[in-house]
C-alpha cells in the first residue's frame, strides 16, 4: 500500500470501493497502533465503514465527489472536532468534546475525507518529541525505541505506519516539520494566515499554522489546497483564494538555492552528509547556489521561545476548572483555580506559563517580550530579503531522532532541537520538510523555505527532490 493518497482518491472517484481502502488502513492500525500509540482517540471501525459506504452510495448516484474522496485523515488532538474528544494532549482537557469543528476539519469533511482519529502530541503542542503528552509517548514506527519528533508526533507516526493517508498537524516552531524529518514523511508549514486557525487550540497564536502532513509532496499539496484560503472567522487569515498547486517538478536550471550558514551548520554528521549530497546533486543538475550568513539568526531560538511562552501563558489562562474537565477541590475561588491548574498542567506547560508571565510582567516586559518582538522584526526582514531571490535550503533537525527519555531532563536541550525550524515561524514564510534518506535506519529530512504565499515553489522543488532521492510514500514495515 505505497500508493500516494492523491492516487487513491482518484481511484475512488473513478469507482474503486472506498470500503476496501478503509479496511486496508484499519489493518495497518490493528498491526501497529498498540506499539506506536499514535492516536489519543480513534473513531469506531463501524463508523469509518459507514462513512465509506455513504461515500460509495454518493459516487454511485453520480453526485459531486470531493477531492479527498475516501482518504483517511488523522487530526492532531489540538484541532477541534465535534464528535471526537479534543484534549490537546493535556489532563486539563481529558474527555473534552468541542461543540464545534475547526474550519480545517470542516473543509476536509466537505471534500469527502474520512477522519480516522485524533493524534497524540506534546501537551498543548509544547514539546519536540511527543513525550510530553499527558497520556503517553508516541513511538517512532521506524525505530520503536525512538521518538517521532513533536509536537505533531502522533500525526507523523500515524502516516509513517499507514494508519492514515493524510494528517492535519500544527506547526508553531517546527511541530509539523520536525516529526516529518524523524518519520520520513512530509510536513508543510504554510505562510502565516494561509490556513485558518479557527478551531486550533492556541499555543503561540502569532507563530502557528495548521499544517498539512502526508507521505509525499503531492499529497501535502492536495491537503493544502483543501484547507488553505480565507476564513472570515480568523482575523489573521489572509484574504486569498484557496491555493492551486501545480504538481510538476521544478526545472533544476531555473532553481536558485540560498544556503544560510546559520541554518546549515551545526547538525550531526550523517545529517550534514546527506544534506550536502542532495545540494550537490541539485547543483550538478544546474541549480545555482548562493552561500550567505545572517548572524542575527543566532537569536532566533530565544526570540521564538520568548514570544511563544508569552502568548502561551495568556492562552492557557482560561483553563481554570470552570468550563473544562479538570477541577479543583477547594471551595474558595482562588484556591480552586490554583489547584485545577496545578492538577491539569504538566511540568513543561507550567514552566512555559511561568516563563511567559515573567516575560510579560511589568519591569521585565521590555527586556523579554518586547525585545523578542523587535528581534523578530529584524529576522523577518532579513529572511524576506533572502527569499525574494532564492529558496532557502536548510537543515530540518540538528540531530537524528533521539531515544525515548533521552532529552527529557533538560528543557534547553529540548528547545535546541527546533533551532532550524523556528525561523520560518518568526518570519511567517512557508517551509517544507521532506525525507532525504536514512542513516542506520533512521530518517533524515531537509527543509526548504520560500517567500510568503510561495507554497507552489516549495511543492515543485519537493517533487524534484523526490525524483532525485526516490523516496516517496515510504512506510515503516
Amino acid at each position, binding site marked *: 500500500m505505497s500508493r500516494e493518497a492523491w492516487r487513491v482518491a482518484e481511484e475512488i472517484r473513478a469507482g474503486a470501493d472506498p470500503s476496501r481502502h478503509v479496511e486496508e488502513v484499519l489493518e495497518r492500525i490493528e498491526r501497529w497502533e498498540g506499539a506506536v500509540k499514535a492516536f489519543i482517540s480513534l473513531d469506531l471501525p463501524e463508523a469509518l465503514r459507514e462513512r465509506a459506504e455513504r461515500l460509495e452510495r454518493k459516487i454511485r448516484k453520480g453526485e459531486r465527489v470531493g477531492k479527498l474522496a475516501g482518504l483517511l485523515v488523522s487530526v492532531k488532538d489540538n484541532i477541534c472536532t465535534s464528535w471526537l474528544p479534543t484534549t490537546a494532549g493535556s489532563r486539563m482537557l481529558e474527555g473534552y468534546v468541542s461543540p464545534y469543528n475547526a474550519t480545517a476539519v470542516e473543509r476536509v469533511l466537505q471534500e469527502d475525507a474520512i477522519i480516522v482519529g485524533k493524534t497524540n502530541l506534546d501537551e498543548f503542542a509544547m514539546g519536540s518529541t511527543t513525550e510530553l503528552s499527558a497520556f503517553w509517548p508516541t513511538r517512532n514506527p521506524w525505530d520503536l525505541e525512538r521518538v517521532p519528533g513533536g509536537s505533531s508526533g502522533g500525526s507523523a507516526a500515524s502516516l509513517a505506519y499507514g494508519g492514515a493517508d493524510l494528517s492535519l498537524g500544527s506547526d508553531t516552531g517546527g511541530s509539523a516539520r520536525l516529526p516529518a524529518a524523524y518519520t520520513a514523511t512530509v510536513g508543510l508549514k504554510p505562510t502565516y494566515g494561509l490556513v485558518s486557525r479557527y478551531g486550533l487550540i492556541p499555543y503561540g497564536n502569532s507563530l502557528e499554522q495548521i499544517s498539512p502532513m502526508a507521505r509525499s509532496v503531492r499529497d501535502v499539496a492536495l491537503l493544502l489546497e483543501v484547507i488553505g484560503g480565507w476564513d472570515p472567522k480568523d482575523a489573521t487569515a489572509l*484574504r486569498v483564494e484557496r491555493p492551486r498547486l501545480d504538481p510538476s517538478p521544478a526545472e533544476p536550471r531555473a532553481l536558485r538555492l540560498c544556503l544560510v550558514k546559520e541554518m546549515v551548520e551545526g547538525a550531526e554528521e550523517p545529517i550534514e552528509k546527506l544534506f550536502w549530497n542532495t545540494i550537490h546533486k541539485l547543483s550538478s543538475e544546474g541549480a545555482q547556489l548562493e552561500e550567505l550568513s545572517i548572524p542575527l539568526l543566532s537569536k532566533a531560538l530565544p526570540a521564538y521561545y520568548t514570544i511563544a511562552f508569552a502568548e502561551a501563558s495568556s492562552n492557557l*489562562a482560561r483553563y481554570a476548572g*470552570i468550563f473544562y474537565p479538570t477541577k479543583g477541590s477547594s471551595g*474558595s*475561588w482562588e484556591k480552586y483555580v490554583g489547584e485545577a491548574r496545578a492538577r491539569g498542567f504538566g511540568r513543561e506547560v507550567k*514552566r512555559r506559563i*511561568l*516563563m511567559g508571565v515573567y516575560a510579560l510582567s511589568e519591569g521585565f516586559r521590555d527586556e523579554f517580550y518586547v525585545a523578542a518582538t*523587535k528581534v523578530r522584526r529584524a529576522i523577518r526582514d532579513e529572511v524576506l530579503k533572502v527569499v525574494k531571490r532564492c529558496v532557502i535550503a536548510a537543515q530540518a533537525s540538528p540531530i537524528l531522532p533521539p531515544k525515548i527519555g533521552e532529552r527529557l531532563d533538560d528543557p534547553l536541550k529540548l528547545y535546541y532541537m527546533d533551532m532550524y525550524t523556528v525561523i520560518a515561524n518568526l518570519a511567517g514564510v512557508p517551509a517544507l520538510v521532506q525525507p532525504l534518506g536514512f542513516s542506520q535506519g533512521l530518517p533524515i529530512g531537509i527543509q526548504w523555505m520560500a517567500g510568503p504565499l510561495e507554497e507552489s515553489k516549495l511543492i515543485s522543488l519537493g517533487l524534484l527532490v523526490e525524483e532525485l532521492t526516490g523516496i516517496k510514500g515510504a512506510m515503516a514495515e
Partner: protein
Amino acid sequence: MECRKELLERLAELAKIALSEEEKESICKDLERIAGYLRAVGEAAKELEAEPLYYVWDLPGPLREPSESPKVSIEELPTKVKEGYVAVPWRGGSVE
C-alpha cells in the same frame, strides 16, 4: 544560577498555579536557566533599531459585518449549572 523564590512565587500567583514545595524547588532552577538563555534577546534588541513586530504581516485586520453563527448550550459543557447559571466555588470551604 541562583534561584529567586520570591520571584517564582509572584509568577505563580499571577499565573494562578498552586505549586508544591518540591515543584517550586525544581521549577525555580529551570526558570533561572531558561530566563538566562532568553535574556540574549534583550541584549540583541538593544543593538537593533527595530520596532516591535506583533502581527507578522503588519497588515490591518478585517472587521465583521453582522451575521448569524451557532450558539453554545451551557449544558453541553463539563461545568456545574444551577438554574441556568454557571456555579463556581467562591468563598466556600473544602468541597472534596
